[in-house]
């Protein structure tokens, strides 16, 4: 049985019957293969079901106004996909990222500013959802340490130059 045919199985009960049939025919040698087929059969309808609802209207469709679309695109590139975590929602094909793009585009089209939309999401998911760096209680050392290091290096340089003269 080819994988392509297996993918056509939508009803898990049907795939279960096939598995039992395979087992009786091939006995122990086919047990492993049957198990794999059974698992694929089990998963196939679930994966298929995930795709069954069409993507949100503005998940893959750009806004008619190119200026607004550019604004939306810039914002989407700095928002984290929550189910994939290391991608932006502009990069991800996850259904939830599509729904987030839809939300961003419809809100931009309705006249909301990108920063208001970002603030709305941060209010729900924390700074984690945004890739745009912010100075906060926990992140200030990231900004302060380079300044301190540069100041230290400047002080050493100044002392050396003064001594050399």
């Amino acid at each position, binding site marked *: 049985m080819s994988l392509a045919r297996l993918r056509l199985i939508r009803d898990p009960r049907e795939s279960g019957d096939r598995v039992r049939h395979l087992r009786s025919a091939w006995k122990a040698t086919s047990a492993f293969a049957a198990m794999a087929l059974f698992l694929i059969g089990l998963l196939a309808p*679930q*994966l298929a*079901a*995930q795709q*069954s*609802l069409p993507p*949100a209207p503005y998940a893959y469709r750009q806004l008619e106004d190119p200026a607004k679309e550019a604004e939306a695109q810039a914002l989407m590139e700095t928002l984290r996909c*929550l*189910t994939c*975590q290391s991608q932006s929602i502009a990069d991800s094909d996850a*259904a*939830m990222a599509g*729904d*987030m793009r*839809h*939300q961003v585009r419809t809100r931009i089209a309705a006249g909301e500013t990108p920063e208001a939309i970002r603030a709305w*999401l*941060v*209010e*729900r*998911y*924390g700074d*984690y*959802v945004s890739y745009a760096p912010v100075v906060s209680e926990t992140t200030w050392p990231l900004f302060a340490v380079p300044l301190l290091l540069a100041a230290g290096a400047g002080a050493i340089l100044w002392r050396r130059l003064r001594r050399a003269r």
Partner: protein
Amino acid sequence: MRWWWWLPLLLFAGFLGVATYQLTQPKDDLVPSAMVGKPLPEFDLRAAAEGMPGVSTADFRDGKPRLLNIWASWCLPCIAEAPQLERLKQEGAEIVGIAIRDRPEDVAAFLARHGNPYTRIGGDDLSQVQLAIGSSGVPETFVIDGRGVIRYQHIGDIRAEHVPILLEKLQEAGE
């Protein structure tokens, strides 16, 4: 050689030590909702399955604390937590469901196969309510008090050991 010549090397060694330690720590994938402690946003969702009512914010403001379960018929861990939801229902918890990106016939098939612990199920086709309450995946379960305020969030499928915690949080929400 003056002692402080070693300082940069020591700092670097210290940095390596911290980095090595952090690499051995398990990664925390959970994205907690910042909406815990805040009221539910306004929404009104269509019925996700035939013969069952939909869900709106007003349904949570009658004084009774409830569980709000974010799930979907296409979600595998949701099958795993179905028996635990059934247990919570038997313990007296009222469970309201929101089905994410789901078709009525798929919802009905899931309920027929894995049981129906819900009193209402709303269909969230664009994940709008999910985003509005700060949920980042399925399944997640929120404890909502009788005034419609989010009091607790459980991320991931409910296992047997989480049932007492949820019941406790539900009781706290009712006090």
